[in-house]
């Protein structure tokens, strides 16, 4: 490939230019796609709630004497795709209302800190195959374009940068000098740090099983045979038992980290006006949402790369199939090439699917109560993730001691022990209904209330 050779030459002669190309290839799609995601959310929510949603903006009717003949008198629809862009232009031109009681520096710094990590998040995320081209042993052009930097810390970088977003929210709440904003900011910080633990441990399980923190390595290990047995199917981690547990924990933590419903307590509009961005207006207000959508998109990408096989369309090992069945080699080879060359498209599709899942959650689930949020994070997800971590470690030790059968035996035994332990703990700590004495009800003249009224009152408490 000419592009491949040119990139290789560029990487040797001018690494900064190559790095700039990588950065542009990461940042530009995000900038273009964020308005699209806002449109997607509004349209999907409308569809789920039996409304129409934005579908008019950008519909152009050309006059019948329009110079371009094929457009004359025609109506061109964009299905409201230009609505978020119109909103953006409007927000840029709106007055930036700045309250007088704020902490000036922090107030301006906070939206910046909310948006910055969302863009910097994807540095170690591979959006296309970094391995060899199909049926060759030459690294393809994608390996030079992605990820932005294939550093050893890989997934730790994602964890570090995604938790920086908490600063934006808590500082916005603090600087606004508004009670509701402050409550929103404090809630955001408590929520983000609580769920970051579960997120970190669930990713640690995957890193333990792959033995590497690099995300390209994680995706490549998912291209191996399923459970080391099924030769033709890829070992996407969501198909392995421990990976499924990790994936569920990580997905729930993801929703909480991006402040999406049902975990959107920091901006719960029926209790806190708008939470931490109550005092923000014009584009500074929208910047929080941009950060949220960009983080949602990129973290969906992380989920896809770590658990869903990254840039592979379906969990089928086409190259292996082509080697096993030479009669069908043409078809399987074509599929392998399709899978490789359109990798960015499949990856984009998985990210969009993740965002659609977030929107679906928002349309379906009611908001949690604060104590439910905290107990879900600390009492359920965190112990589950740690138990999963121990199970993965046991699986690896027993695999190297007694082979795959030993590994799965250890996995099954450990899971059984942990489930029994959990059931015992749950039975021991279960609380009965709240024991409060029945209220004494007296009628106006001092006599005791009739039994029927008292019973009703007890049922209520």
């Amino acid at each position, binding site marked *: 490939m000419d592009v491949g050779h040119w990139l290789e030459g560029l990487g040797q002669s001018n*690494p*900064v*230019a190559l*790095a*700039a190309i990588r950065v542009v290839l990461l*940042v530009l799609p995000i900038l273009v796609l964020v308005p699209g995601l806002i449109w997607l959310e509004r349209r999907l929510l409308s569809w789920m709630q039996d409304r129409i949603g934005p579908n008019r903006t950008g519909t152009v009717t050309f006059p019948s004497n329009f110079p371009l003949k094929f457009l004359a008198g025609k109506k061109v629809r964009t299905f409201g795709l230009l609505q978020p862009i119109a909103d953006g232009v409007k927000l*840029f*031109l*709106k007055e*930036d*209302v700045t*309250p*007088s009681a704020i902490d000036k520096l922090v107030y301006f710094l906070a*939206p*910046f800190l909310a*948006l910055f990590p*969302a*863009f*910097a998040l994807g540095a170690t995320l591979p959006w296309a195959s970094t391995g060899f081209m199909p049926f060759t042993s030459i690294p393809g052009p994608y390996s030079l374009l992605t990820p*932005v*930097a294939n*550093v050893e810390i890989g997934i730790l970088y994602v964890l570090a940068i995604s938790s920086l977003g908490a600063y934006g929210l808590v500082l916005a709440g*603090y600087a*606004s*000098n508004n009670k*509701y904003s*402050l*409550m929103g900011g*404090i*809630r955001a910080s*408590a929520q983000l*740090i609580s769920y*970051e633990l579960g997120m*970190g441990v669930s990713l*640690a399980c995957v890193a333990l099983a*792959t*033995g590497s923190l690099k995300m390209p390595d994680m995706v490549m290990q998912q291209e191996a045979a399923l459970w080391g047995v099924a030769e033709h199917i890829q070992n996407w981690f969501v198909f392995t038992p421990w990976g499924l547990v990790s994936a569920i924990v990580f997905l729930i933590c993801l929703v909480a980290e991006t402040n999406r419903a049902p975990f959107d307590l920091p901006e719960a509009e029926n209790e806190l*006006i708008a939470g931490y961005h109550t005092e923000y207006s014009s*584009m*500074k207000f929208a*910047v929080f949402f941009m950060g949220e959508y960009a983080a949602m998109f990129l973290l969906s990408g992380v989920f896809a790369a770590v658990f869903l096989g990254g840039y592979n369309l379906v969990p089928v090992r086409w190259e292996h199939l082509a080697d096993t069945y030479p009669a069908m080699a043409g078809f399987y080879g074509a599929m392998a090439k399709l899978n490789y060359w359109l990798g960015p498209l499949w990856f984009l599709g998985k990210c969009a699917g993740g965002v659609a899942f977030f929107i679906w959650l928002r349309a379906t689930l009611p908001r949690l109560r604060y*104590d439910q949020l*905290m107990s879900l994070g*600390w*009492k359920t997800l965190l112990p589950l993730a*740690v138990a999963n*971590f*121990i199970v993965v*470690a*046991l699986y*690896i*030790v027993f695999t*190297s001691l007694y082979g795959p059968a030993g590994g799965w035996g250890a996995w099954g035994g450990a899971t059984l022990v942990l489930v029994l332990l959990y059931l015992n703990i749950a039975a021991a700590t279960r609380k009965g209904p709240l024991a*409060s004495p029945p*209220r*004494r009800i*007296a009628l*106006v*003249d*001092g006599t005791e209330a009739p039994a029927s009224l008292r019973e009703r009152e007890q049922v209520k408490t």
Partner: protein
Amino acid sequence: MLGRGIFQAVFGEFLPILLLMLVAAVVAGAMVTLSWVLGPKKDTPYKSSTYECGVTPVGNAIERFPIKFYLVAILFVLFDIEVVFLWSWITVFKGATIQYQVFSGVAVGIYLVLWIIGDAYVIKVGALEWDEEPQVAPEKLLPTPVEAPTIAAGSHS
């Protein structure tokens, strides 16, 4: 052009990340400042007052807040540091020899058991209880018995 200049020497393979952070900072900074530059500015005392649903704000908002949030932050620091210690072990565990795997597996197992005991203790002492149950002084939280208004005998008949 910097080429293989001092930046490459200092940052090595982290150079693209630095570049990405620069771009992210420029984009985010532009978003925040552009509306400040482009938008009109007509300040009035009412517009620039704190918005609390139309009610005149009372006092300063940056004040005391519930201690429970602080407790959660402290717990996070403790537990997160414990996870951070694991990361270095995670990277070497899978490729290590069997002897090392068994030895370090037992060591980390003990470490994680301590971790679990810590988490169980935190849950048991109720550090993560957010609902206001009458635990401290139940008698204070019970509704005070209201005296039924005494009505002079015969007045209602």
